């Protein structure tokens, strides 16, 4: 116990020494808090191979696109965590990937104010590899009223899934939008109502990747995921009211 802690400290120090300049863009007032709360104080490195791409400013704070690309990371990924440090609901998703999932995820989120975005990949070297992005926002995305709730008859469309599969670069890119208000409990007295769990599965029902989703994900969640090679896939999703939704790519 003591030994691993010491190793962690040493490693941390080395990383700081070696990459002082590169790590400066990773520093934030909230890092220590989330390191403890979400990563359980486990060993980590800031790693620019984990790219967190965001637009330079959030034109629509209710739909801010994130693109996480960690395909350059060597080894096998055991866990992926995404969060927005200064959001009222910081967590975005927790992914348990299978062998077939590429380390590429795009998702649109709500942002309440300017915030660092973190993507942490737990690799088989036992380290969390952490990438950082920044969103500039005037804000208000989390407390803004729902757009789809204003549409007549929206309830009938909840859970409808539109999308496409694209074969490119030896991967199957799966793009999708799930019709859902993703109520986060912060707007208009409407209780939480959101898709909190999804899985990519193969034709036989075997799980290819598991996604825990949070209400910081925008309404009508829009996702891009990628599988290795030419893959058929199905999506299973469930909201916190127990409704289940199925799609086939």
């Amino acid at each position, binding site marked *: 116990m003591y030994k691993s802690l010491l190793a962690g400290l040493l490693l941390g120090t080395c990383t700081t020494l070696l990459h002082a300049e590169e790590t400066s863009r990773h520093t934030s007032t909230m890092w220590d808090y989330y390191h403890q709360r979400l990563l359980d104080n486990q060993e980590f490195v800031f790693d620019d191979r984990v790219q967190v791409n965001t637009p330079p400013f959030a034109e629509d704070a209710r739909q801010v696109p994130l*693109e996480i690309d960690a395909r350059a990371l060597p080894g096998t990924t055991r866990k992926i965590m995404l969060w927005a440090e200064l959001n009222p609901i910081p967590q975005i998703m927790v992914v348990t990937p299978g062998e077939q999932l590429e380390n590429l995820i795009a998702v649109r989120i709500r942002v309440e104010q300017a915030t660092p975005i973190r993507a942490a990949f737990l690799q088989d070297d036992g380290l969390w590899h952490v990438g950082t992005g920044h969103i500039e926002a005037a804000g208000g995305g989390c407390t803004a009223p729902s757009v789809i709730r204003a549409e007549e008859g929206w309830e009938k469309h909840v859970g409808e899934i539109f999308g496409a599969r694209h074969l490119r670069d030896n991967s199957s890119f799966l*793009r999708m939008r799930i019709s859902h208000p993703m109520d986060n409990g912060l707007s208009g007295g409407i209780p939480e109502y959101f898709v909190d769990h999804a899985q990519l599965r193969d034709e036989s029902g075997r799980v290819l990747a598991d996604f825990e989703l949070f209400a910081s994900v925008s309404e009508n969640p829009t996702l891009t995921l990628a599988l290795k090679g030419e893959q058929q896939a199905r999506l299973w999703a469930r909201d916190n009211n127990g409704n289940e939704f199925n799609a086939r790519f």
Partner: protein
Amino acid sequence: MLRLVCGAILLGYCLMAQAAYDLQPKLVADNTWVLEGSTGNFSKENGGNIVNIAFIVTDTQVILIDSGPSFAYGRELAEAIRQITDKPVGTILLTHHHPDHMLGSQAFPHARVAALASTAQLMQEEGDAMAENMYRMVGDRMRGTEVVMPDSILEPGLLELDDYRLQLLQLHGHTNADLAIFDPQTGVLFAGDLVFYQRAVSTAHTPGIAVWLQDLDTLAALPWTVIVPGHGPVAGNDAPFQQMRDYLGWLDQLLTTAAARGDDMNRVMRSPVPERFAGISLAGYELIRTVSHLYPAYEQAYWQSLSE
């Protein structure tokens, strides 16, 4: 003594504040003047003056086309008009509900403020939020600015103001509630924000690029001799139309291709702007906004239902 100094400082401040926009009306046709704003973005430095405001001096009155981004701008505009004519500003025609075009009306308390019914409705719904947003971006020079709601509703067709005739067109491409004004006496076309020239279009409220392209055909078919765009330099040839069609066509193609290729938003936002648009101010910035607003519809158009 102290009071005198303070007075002098205050006076200096007031003079500075009053001359802040440095408005220079330019004669573009008989009795027709344009105040050309910059092709930049809203900032504290420009006080929101990124817009073209025009006025026509008739036998009986001054007809103002849009009123500017702030009360302070409106006051300076009133002064600039007084330097040219002593006729009163009797009518303000608002081309659409965007804040840079309609927030100067307070400076003309005796003028009729006229707009399309759909524009008045958008002003009712979004006007205050837009004004607030302007305070955030422009700051101090917005002080005291409030939305003045239209008191007259315009119908498309011929508008007669005393003996002066204007042809009004109700179009949709920029905000779904866009007024274009053609002056048959002079051949001047006041295109509002249906035409941007040398400045990237703002697409935040467009119902779609196809609609906008149709409106451009409608406008181009008028017997105009001078085009006053909503943003960018006044032109005496069809260069603004050509550039608009080329640019909107590029955007449409870019978004269609990206959706078919399966790109997510960030990738589309990073698309390079073609060399031929190098002269268009803020193209990269507006591209990010355009992708944010329009790309979901392009995705939806390409996608199929996957539900089972």
